[in-house]
């Protein structure tokens, strides 16, 4: 039953593409990843997957004009409260480009300015601090990615979740749009909350 319903829901955007209309109809979607999440090794594997996802998100986000002044201006991915993931990310990004933009990793510390950042990852940790960071990022044209339960409720654009031991993500296009960004509907199509049929 559920599978039928999901197919039916998915068929609509497919048709929309075929018609050439790329408007967003779905708010929040979740993605599943077949990554086991247990133990230290599993923890590091999970970090690797999240780092790769984080870098790939850049390909499905549209920043407002001015956020990326030059055609080859670097896309800055700032990592807060999770140094290990920053390490992993730094290992991946060299040499990679998204739409001709090189990728730069920045470790965000307390009091660092959020200016010039395109993607802000807030690692799991204190919920209050995460919430304040999300709030602080709100006026900036950047994509906030969290990995906390109910992260979207805090106002983040994308939130990693673990589902059946696999890394997935939820997305909130509204939250992203509030920061002046746009999420690709193609990304939304693999967001896990899209499959739940719940917007937000």
């Amino acid at each position, binding site marked *: 039953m559920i599978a039928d319903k999901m197919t039916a829901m998915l068929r609509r955007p497919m048709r929309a593409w075929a018609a050439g209309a790329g408007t967003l109809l779905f708010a929040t979607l979740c993605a599943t990843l077949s990554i086991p999440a247990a133990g230290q090794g599993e923890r590091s594997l999970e970090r690797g997957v999240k780092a790769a996802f984080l870098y790939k998100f850049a390909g499905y986000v549209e920043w407002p004009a001015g956020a990326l002044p030059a055609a080859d201006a670097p896309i800055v991915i700032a990592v807060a409260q999770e140094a290990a993931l920053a390490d992993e990310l730094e290992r991946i990004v060299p040499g990679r480009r998204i739409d001709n933009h090189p990728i730069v990793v920045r470790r965000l510390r307390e009091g660092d300015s959020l200016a010039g950042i395109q993607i802000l990852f807030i690692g799991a940790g204190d919920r209050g601090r995460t919430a304040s960071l999300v709030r602080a990022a709100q006026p900036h044209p950047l994509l906030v990615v969290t990995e906390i339960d109910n992260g979207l409720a805090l106002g983040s654009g994308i939130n990693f979740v673990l589902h059946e031991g696999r890394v997935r993500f939820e997305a909130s296009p509204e939250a992203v749009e509030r920061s002046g960004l746009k999420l690709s509907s193609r990304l939304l*199509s693999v967001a896990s909350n899209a499959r739940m049929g719940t917007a937000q």
Partner: protein
Amino acid sequence: MMPAFGSSVRARVMWVVLSTTFASLLLAGTTLLLYELRNYKATRIAEIQSLANIIARASAPAIAFEDAKAAKENLALLGVRPKINAAAIYKPGGTLFATYSRLPEARPFPVSPGAEGFVIEGMRVRLFQRIVENNEVLGTLYIDALYEPLERLKDYLVILGVVMMAAMALAFAISAWLQGAITEPILDITRVTREVMNRRDFSLRAEKTTQDEIGELAVAFNGMLGEVGQRSSELEVINLSLEHEMNEKREAEEALRQADRRKDEFLATLAHELRNPLAPIRNGLEILRMPNVDATAAARARDMMERQLKQMVRLVDDLLDVSRITTGKLVVARERVELQTVVHNAVETARPFVEARRHTLTIDMPGAPIAIDADATRLAQVVSNLINNAARYTEPGGRIGVSVTQDADTVSICVSDNGIGIARELQSSIFDMFTQVDQSLERRQAGLGVGLTLAKKLVELHGGSIHVDSEGLGKGTRMRVVLPLTSPLPGTSRDLPAVNTGSARGPAPRRILLADDNVDFVNSMGTLLEAMGHEVCVAHDGAEALASAEKFRPDFAFLDIGMPMINGYDLARRLKAMPATAHTVLTAVSGWGQASDRLRATEAGFDNHLVKPVEVDQLESIIVNSPA
């Protein structure tokens, strides 16, 4: 070669239209089909390619974010396209990431992705497409789709077939409607042709309904019909005249055959008639030869022999006349004579025969003399012939009448009898040569059948005509000779010269030379002349005659032309050359009496010319009439 598609022009025109339509439709259809086939391939591949592009793009996030389920769902969306058999997504490493299969028993997926592009394998096309995002190859999309150009072709063939049939039907209808303009005039001409053939009526004409070649054809056809009709009627006329000529020729042939038959009969009769007197003559000779024959018997025998001889002479004379008629040499020497005398002579000639048959002969002539221009001998021959005929064809003891009647400018001599008469159907042909009135085999009244012909010719030579009148068989016959009358004679009949009837008064004795290789003839003639008191010398060839003449010095010489040693002409020249005979009266005696013969005789020096047979009277006449 034209296909055997019906024999009529209508069918042929239809065939042309339909085959043209069919051929052009077939060409157009085939071209369209080929184009469609090629197009199908292009569009099909493009369709699958674009589908692959869409799926690849849609599936890119699923691969990027390792969402196999989403990828599978994406592929499953291909299920709305029934022509997709199966699809799969391979990870960059070549492992299967997601699959879709329309049918459970689908073919196994390739173990590893192939090179990018499509491969057509029979009824399916397999396509590999790299999934690229941000210059990064995320994986490979594999699509196995149906490739059915033949299905497509089938549809098109059905459409083409239907269109073709509809077009043919339309072409048929239009052609049937329009072709009347072409075929009708032709059919019209054909109808006329058939009519002409059937009725042989060349006056029929085809109607010129169009101004095109067919119209010209109609005009030419009419012209030919006219020509043929004219020639045909000309031929008919010629045929008719030919037929007429044929008939005439046939009639002429029949007439010739008849004449030939008559001639044969004539010959048979002639032989018979000539042979008949010979037996009594021989009997007479036998009687005269007997040693103790008494004078009365001898005189009877001589009389009998003389009669028979006269009969023969008459026959031969007739025969000679016949030959003269047939060669056109019968001539009459006309002079003014008294008709009564001529008739009287004729009656006297015929009287012995009339009396022999015990007929009663009455003569009725006007007292006043009637003068006509005629050959007295020939005219007498005609009348005596008629009297002889009347006597012959009347049973003994009959009545024969001779009358002469004078009209304004003609005179008629009628000889009538109460004899056997002449059947009406024969009356027109009795004047034809050799016609025998009595055609039965055992006819009693034999004749040569030339008498009337001769009479008719002679009368015609006198400018007159002869007519027969008989009520029919057994009713008697009336023959009438009509002659033109000349102006009345001045004076009386005493002025007329006496007709020379060959009287045997004795002439003064003369010296006469007779030369002929016919010994009997010349000897008997010599004997006769000597009996008349002349001195005669006889020679039997030219040389002998010449030798005798010099010593004999004859007053008269009668020379045969065809003699041995020296012929008559040469002999005459030599006699004229000799002083002893230079003044001898020379007379040629020949079998030829033509003008050229006479001329030749005159040139040779002859004074007279006699045609055989010669009688002693003729010699006597020359002797008497020549100056001493």
